[in-house]
């Protein structure tokens, strides 16, 4: 009587153990992620100003939000920024990975140099970047001191061009990381496939275009996901480089949301912009996650 009982209990425990171990993670995710998202959605329909206050105002915040010119600037900026940032990072990352994969001497030294920017926050490198981009101190000044008198680089002072300096700094920070992802993908490709193609007379260019790059599809996808979430979250670098200026020319959704929620005491509008951001993220991520997870069943 007793023996089978304990055995049963043991098997049952073994059955339940994995779920028990996983449960806390799921619980905190449900509360701290989905609960908070729900909270934000509710907040976006309230007239909250300084602290959350649950007075219902319907879609008023959304109407106000889309009437604000700065929000449209923010949307236009994130579109320019994200597309350039993702494309350039991917291109540079892929190029560097392919180049580094050619039995380069000193790879062990170059790799950490490419990677280290990812280790630094813009609180650390912000001043250096500001200097570098400032015409009076930075690149322009250095070039002129070195004799190139007509050299001009005033993007950061120009409302039209300032957003591109943000792209530049963002590419600096993450392209090395993307390189590492591609390099890992390249190293994972079986050499026999390449050798076979070479025997068939494919040129290096054809080899990469037809065979290697298609094989890197998972790396492309991972890079895309990481880059797009970094792009949407980009906050630190805007604050560090331009503070949203000149004027509000480099306002981004994340900076917009932060300023309305925390410095302008219009938490309702801040929340509604957050909801729009979350919906955008979901629109990009959910199909990707769905495809990825389905594939692996």
């Amino acid at each position: 009587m007793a023996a089978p009982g304990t055995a049963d209990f043991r098997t049952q425990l073994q059955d339940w153990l994995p779920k028990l171990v996983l449960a806390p993670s799921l619980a905190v995710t449900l509360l701290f992620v989905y609960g908070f998202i729900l909270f934000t959605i509710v907040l976006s329909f309230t007239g909250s100003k300084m602290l959350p206050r649950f007075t219902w105002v319907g879609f008023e915040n959304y109407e106000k939000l889309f009437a604000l010119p700065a929000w449209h600037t923010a949307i236009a900026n994130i579109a320019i920024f994200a597309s350039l940032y993702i494309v350039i990072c991917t291109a540079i990352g892929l190029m560097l990975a392919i180049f580094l994969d050619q039995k380069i001497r000193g790879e062990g030294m170059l790799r950490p140099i490419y990677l280290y920017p990812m280790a630094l926050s813009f609180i650390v490198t912000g001043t250096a970047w500001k200097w570098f981009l400032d015409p009076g101190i930075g690149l322009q000044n250095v070039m002129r001191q070195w004799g190139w008198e007509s050299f001009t680089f005033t993007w950061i002072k120009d409302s039209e061009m300032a957003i591109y300096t943000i792209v530049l700094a963002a590419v600096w920070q993450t392209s090395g990381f993307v390189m590492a992802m591609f390099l890992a993908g390249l190293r994972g490709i079986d050499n026999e496939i390449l050798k076979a193609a070479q025997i068939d007379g494919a040129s290096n260019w054809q080899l990469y275009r037809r065979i290697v790059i298609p094989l890197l599809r998972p790396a492309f996808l991972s890079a895309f996901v990481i880059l797009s979430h970094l792009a949407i979250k980009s906050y630190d670098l805007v604050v560090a480089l331009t503070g949203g200026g000149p004027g509000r020319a480099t306002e981004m959704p994340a900076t917009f949301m932060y300023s309305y929620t925390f410095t302008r005491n219009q938490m309702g509008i801040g929340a509604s912009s957050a909801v729009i951001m979350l919906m955008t993220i979901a629109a990009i991520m959910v199909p990707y996650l769905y495809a990825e997870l389905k594939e692996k069943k």
Partner: protein
Amino acid sequence: MRGFFGLKLTVAAALLASTTMAVAEDVEVLHWWTSGGEAAALNVLKEDLATKSIGWVDMPVAGGGGEAAMTALRARVTAGNPPTAVQMLGFDILDWAAEDALGDLTTVAAAEGWDAVVPAALQGFSKHDGKWIAAPVNVHSTNWVWMNKAALDAAGGKAPETWEELVAVLDAMKANGITPLAHGGQAWQDATVFDGVVLGLGNDFYKAAFIDLDPAVLGGDQMAEAFNRLIKLSTYVDANFSGRDWNLASAMVINGEAGMQMMGDWAKGEFVKAGKVPGTDFVCIRFPGTQGSVTFNSDQFAMFGVESDGAKAAQGAMASAIMNPTFQSAFNVVKGSAPARTDVPNDAFDDCGKKAMADLATANDSNSLFGSMAHGHAAPASVKNAVYDVVTAAFNGSYVDGAAAAAALATAVAAAQ
């Protein structure tokens, strides 16, 4: 970590208990005064409290005129764990009071007679519903122009007293080959200049536009004229102005690269630190057309609601120490501002400081002391930032003329209310 701190506190408490009978608790102070001079001035306060056996738990959060600090504060209050005292500006204090988050200093204030010595315009931010909620540390006035004496002499030598004279001096400086106006293109700096421009068009106009937020005035002809003047001023800055910190702009005036800077009294510290003497090396004047009036901002320590009697006692002691005339004098000499009470002797202050105190007293007596829009003392944060948006856009040439900017201002302010 928790345990470590806990232990330290216990030991400290034990020491205290053994030496004195007082049961005062520590004060936790959130502030953004982290630069050398300011922190040194704050240390005076800390030492003073230490003599009353009140410990100081420091929580400095610098950045953006307190923006980061206000975010941290919001998290602390939401979590039900506010600091004892928080450095705060203008309408933020009243907004927090409206949220019922602040404590009550009325007992201390009544005992020490604050009502009689603090200018009424300041009391507007230190009191809510008749209760004292904050202790003002200083009064900054923002409608100053700082000029390089040599550059002014080269441009005719007479300090401008009207808008036309100002434009003439700026033109002369431009002809002399220097940057006429040293400026940093950050929203609050643009707005600081604009405060002066608006005040220069008359006290009534400033009050109707920025204090009463009258939509007709905000979008009216006079506002259009104000924006035209701002746009005019924007033609006198160098190409490199965008994003520049204000102290770098001051440096341009100090070393003669630029002629003048329109900035609050804190700029004086930069000149003095560079070894410049008021009157000989540089000139401080009120923004042309605003002599006799003052736009101010005032750093105050807002006292948050605390539970225990010990904490309340410590809070009261801190407020009392802040209002002490000796501290007010010592702090403001360092900071470049004027004391927040009118009965502080001016012996320790320099010429510009004495002028600031005299101007403040005059303005206070003649009802021409106004809260600065640029520094959150004229309207709540949402309106202030809406004004920032339009002013900055105008300064950066986004509107065809002043009338278009004035129309945009009226819309933006309406949307923010």
